[in-house]
C-alpha cells in the first residue's frame, strides 16, 4: 500500500512537472487569435478592403507575453511596369491621401483586436503584455510615403486591457493604456 502511494505521488509529480513545462498558452488559442485578426483586417472596410499580404503570426514569449504580427497594404494599388512606365502625379497624390485617411481605421481595428486577445488568451499572465505589430507595404519606387509608417506596434499589459474589456476602466483610457510605436 505504501509502495502504491509512493508510486502514485511520483506519477502525480511527473504529470504536474510535465504540465508545468508545457506551453502556458496553447497553440489553439494563439491560432484562434491569428484567424480572428485576419478576419478583422479583411472585413474592416467593405468599400475598399485592406490588402492583406501576410496572415497573422502569433507566438507566446515567456516573460513578455503574446506577440502577433501581420503584413498588409492600406490599399490595393497598381505598380510601374513596362506597360505603365510612369505613374500619373494625381494618382500618386490620390493614393497617398487615401492611405493617410485609412490609417485611423487600421489603428482602431488593432485596438479592438487587442481587447479581444486580452480576454481570450487566459494563459497569458495578467502582468505580461499583448503585443500586436503590423508591417505596412509600399511601392517605394513611386509612392509618397510622407507621414505613413512602415510598422505600427501596439503593446499593453493584459490586465489593463481586461479592465477596459470588463468595464472596470473606460474605453477612453485605451489611449493611455496602449503604447503605440510607429516606425
Amino acid at each position: 500500500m505504501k509502495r502504491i502511494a509512493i508510486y502514485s505521488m511520483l506519477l502525480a509529480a511527473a504529470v504536474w512537472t510535465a504540465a508545468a513545462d508545457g506551453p502556458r498558452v496553447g497553440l489553439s488559442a494563439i491560432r484562434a487569435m491569428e484567424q480572428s485578426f485576419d478576419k478583422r483586417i479583411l472585413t474592416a472596410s467593405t468599400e475598399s478592403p485592406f490588402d492583406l499580404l501576410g496572415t497573422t503570426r502569433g507566438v507566446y514569449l515567456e516573460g513578455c507575453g503574446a506577440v502577433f504580427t501581420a503584413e498588409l497594404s492600406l490599399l490595393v494599388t497598381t505598380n510601374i511596369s513596362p506597360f505603365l512606365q510612369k505613374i500619373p502625379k494625381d494618382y500618386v497624390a490620390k493614393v497617398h491621401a487615401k492611405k493617410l485617411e485609412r490609417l485611423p481605421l487600421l489603428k482602431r481595428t488593432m485596438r479592438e483586436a487587442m481587447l479581444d486577445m486580452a480576454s481570450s488568451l487566459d494563459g497569458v499572465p495578467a502582468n505580461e503584455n499583448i503585443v500586436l505589430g503590423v508591417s505596412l507595404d509600399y511601392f517605394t519606387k513611386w509612392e509618397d510615403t510622407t507621414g505613413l509608417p512602415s510598422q505600427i506596434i501596439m503593446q499593453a499589459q493584459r490586465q489593463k486591457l481586461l479592465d477596459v474589456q470588463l468595464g472596470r476602466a473606460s474605453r477612453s483610457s485605451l489611449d493611455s493604456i496602449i503604447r503605440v510605436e510607429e516606425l
Partner: protein
Amino acid sequence: MIFRAVEDADLIGKARQGEVEAYNLLISRWEKRVYNYLLRIVGEREEALDLSQDVFLKAYQNLRKLDDPARFAPWLFRIAHNEAFSSFRKRRPEGELPDQAQFPGDEIPAGGPAAFPIELSIAVTTALGKLSPEHREAVILKIYQGFKFEEMAEILECPVSTVKSRLYTALDVLKAQLAPLKSRGVT
C-alpha cells in the same frame, strides 16, 4: 576605418583647442552608438537620451585627460558606463544594484527597421532584459558595440577574465532562451 580614426584624432585635437563645432561633429559620429548602448542598459529612451547628453558633456570637459586619441572609443564608453551605473545607484539605495533588469512592464523597446520581424526583436529585448545589468552590458559591449576583450576590460576596469566570464555566462542564458524560438518558427 583607419581613415575615420585619423579624422577622429583630428577632431579631438581641434576640440581640445576649444573648437566646439569640431566636437559637435565628433558627437554626430558617436551619438548613435552611445545612445543605443545606454538604451540597452537602462531600458528607457528618455533616460538614455539624458544620459547620452551627460556623457558627451563630461567627455568634452575631460578631453584634455585623454592621453591617446586612438583610445577615444573605450575612453568614451568608460564615461558612458559610469553614467549608466550612477543612474542605477540613484534609483536604488546606496550600494545595492538591481539583480535583475528593470525594464518597466509596458516599455519593451520594440523598435527596429521594418525588415526584421517584430517578434524577434521583442524576444531579444525580453531575453536581454532578464540578465543582470553587468551581464547585459558585457553582451552589449561585445556583440553590439564590437569591442575587443581588452577594450572591454578597460571600459569596465576589471580583468579580461572577468569580462569573458560575464559574457560567456550571459551567452549560455541567452542560448537557452533564444535558440528554442527556432522551433516555434520565429527565426
